[in-house]
């Protein structure tokens, strides 16, 4: 335990380097812009900027990219409150009370509350990561291939159990990801598979291209369909408003704490920030004594979803660091970055690259403090960006996506692929197929398959290896429970209603 604090202290030494602080500021600002613009989000924003970091040291690179992630999380709140347009899916719940507050002239208050609760949620999650991640990593060191596969199984099964989309659609989306991950050269046998003679498919599908297409292009098409009309509220935050709001916030400590816990839980299991924010809002509405007034501009209705969304978004990095299983699409992109920089994510990271890990964790603390200060002071600037009409923004974002897709592998074919993924993203989104499992499956496909094959090799092809010891059985059991949860809850509901015919 004490070692960790020593490591963290060293980490602060790395993160507080002036160059790294500068990267934090740039990252947060870029992140907020990305979060504010429709069509650019955390996942594809980071994916587009990933190639720029190839020449940096891994620690600086991850600081820049993770700060973009924090910035995007902050940025989503601005559009929700001022324009009633959620810049990110997890800020949908913030519009419910945030925008009514802005309409009644309390935009400054709503934004201060949103940013501050974001900060609180993130901070809570970082403390949890600091305390728990090393333990999880140490525990995971004894994992063999079967346990590894079981962890992947649990991660994907919880998607099926927790997402609000129909389970069969979640499974299809996930399996498409796994299938795409298989395309190309098979690392074990050296055979080409699923390429059907197309030389362009030799290297398989790069998940960064998929992310840029699915989330970037798909989002632009969706925005276009809805026909964006910006009717924004002006925002000015002066220190007096901030101070006044901060004085009222401690009253909601119960809501904050509850939202933090919901967020952390949903972030670690890859349910993600979006359901966390809705759940937290829903519970706050039911429990709070002002619950009836939720939806009309209640400050507590901003605190609850924002805290949970940030806690979830931040804690999604815990399984990525400790187990190599990202909890969100953006964490998946960061994990892809680790691989590109030559780092192997997973428990060994804490042993072999402890400087990198603790530098990152320290930068999370600093990055969020810097982020809070930055967003509170620069809101008017970002509100102005939002007033740029969509007919200018849209082609520019298209160009940015195309450049981003090209720079991943310096390959023009990828730009075409991006467009295909874009149309696919639009279609899947409109028919309620979740995109996050698809992306996660493309990223984790190779490692999941490797773990699966290795396990079967050791057992000579028998699937009983996944139930061979208490540890792996427990994880698999939890996975089965999570995956079959929709069925279980259906049965429970039936049992509860049948005995008492009303």
């Amino acid at each position, binding site marked *: 335990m004490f070692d960790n604090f020593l490591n963290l202290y060293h980490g602060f030494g790395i993160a507080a380097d002036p160059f790294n602080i500068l990267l934090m500021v740039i990252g947060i600002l870029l992140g907020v812009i990305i979060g504010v613009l429709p069509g650019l989000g955390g996942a594809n924003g980071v994916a587009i900027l990933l*190639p*720029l970091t190839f*020449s940096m040291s891994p620690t600086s690179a991850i600081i820049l990219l993770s700060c973009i992630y924090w910035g995007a999380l902050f940025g989503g709140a601005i559009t929700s409150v001022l324009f009633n347009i959620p810049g990110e899916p997890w800020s949908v719940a913030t519009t419910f009370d945030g925008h009514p507050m802005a309409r009644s002239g309390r935009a400054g208050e709503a934004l201060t509350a949103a940013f501050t609760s974001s900060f609180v949620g993130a901070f809570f999650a970082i403390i949890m990561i600091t305390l728990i991640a090393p333990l999880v990593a140490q525990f995971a060191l004894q994992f063999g291939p079967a346990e590894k596969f079981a962890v992947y199984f649990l991660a994907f099964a919880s998607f099926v159990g927790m997402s609000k989309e*129909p389970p*069969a*659609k979640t*499974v*299809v989306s996930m*399996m*498409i990801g*796994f*299938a795409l991950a*298989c395309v190309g050269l*098979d690392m*074990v*046998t050296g*055979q*080409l*598979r*699923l390429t059907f003679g197309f030389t362009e498919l030799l290297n398989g599908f790069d998940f960064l291209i998929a992310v840029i297409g699915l989330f970037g*292009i798909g989002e*632009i*098409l969706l925005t*276009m*369909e*809805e*026909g964006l009309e910006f009717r924004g509220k002006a925002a000015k935050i002066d220190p007096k408003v901030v101070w006044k709001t901060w004085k009222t916030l401690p009253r909601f400590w119960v809501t904050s704490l509850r939202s933090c816990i919901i967020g952390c839980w949903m972030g670690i299991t890859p349910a993600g920030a979006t359901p966390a924010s809705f759940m937290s809002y829903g519970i706050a509405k039911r429990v709070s004594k002002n619950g009836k007034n939720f939806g009309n501009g209640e400050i507590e209705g901003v605190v609850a979803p924002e805290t949970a969304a940030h806690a979830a978004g931040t804690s999604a990095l815990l399984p990525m660091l400790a187990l190599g299983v990202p909890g969100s699409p953006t964490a998946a992109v960061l994990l892809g970055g680790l691989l590109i920089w030559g780092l192997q994510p997973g428990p060994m990271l804490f042993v072999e690259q402890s400087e990198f890990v603790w530098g990152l964790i320290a930068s999370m603390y600093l990055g969020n403090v810097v982020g809070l200060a930055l967003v509170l002071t620069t809101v008017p600037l970002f509100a102005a960006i939002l007033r740029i*009409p969509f*007919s*200018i923004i*849209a*082609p*520019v974002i*298209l*160009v940015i996506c*195309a*450049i981003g897709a*090209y*720079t991943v592998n*310096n390959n*023009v*074919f990828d*730009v*075409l692929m*991006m*467009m295909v993924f*874009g*149309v696919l993203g*639009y*279609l*899947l989104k*409109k*028919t309620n*197929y979740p995109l996050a499992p698809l992306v996660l499956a493309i990223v984790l496909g190779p490692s999941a*398959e490797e773990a*699966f*094959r290795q396990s*079967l*090799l050791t057992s000579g*092809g028998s699937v009983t290896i996944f139930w061979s010891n208490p540890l792996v059985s427990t994880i698999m059991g939890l996975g089965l429970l999570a995956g079959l949860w929709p069925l279980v809850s259906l049965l429970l509901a039936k049992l509860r209603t049948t005995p008492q015919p009303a």
Partner: protein
Amino acid sequence: MEQAHQGAGGGGPKQRAVELGTALLTLLFGFIVVYGSLRVGAGWDGGPQAGFFPFYVGLIIIGCSVLNLVSAYREDPVALFAEYSQLGQVLKVLVPSCIYVALVPALGIYVPSILLIFVFMVWLGKYGIPLSLAVAFGVPIFFYITLERWFLIPLPKGPVEALLGL
């Protein structure tokens, strides 16, 4: 599709039809994956063969696509996927973007980008020529300076750039 003669703005393809189509599409994809896996061998040869894992992935896709097909069939046959006017909006972005992407391999990224932004602003945004030209040239020049000069990341170039000696 068959309701095209209805008044503009009101009609549109049905959500149910699109759901059915998507499920059929994923079903087809599942079969392709299974077929591709069988081609490289999906069995056991001293260990799992190359197609072993994707084969079962393909089977699951087929199974769940059938489930989706059934639930799509039961869906409300009236609900709209989107109105034709909305789809028109989408096509107004989609068609220029596709042309843009198709031009990139031949012309590099700069010339198509200038064209895309210009056409978009003049046609959809109804902006004046001078402003549109300024943005259309400004954005690619910005990326040229930041990416190629500062970060030394080369972007695809075509005959026009070669002519300019860039």
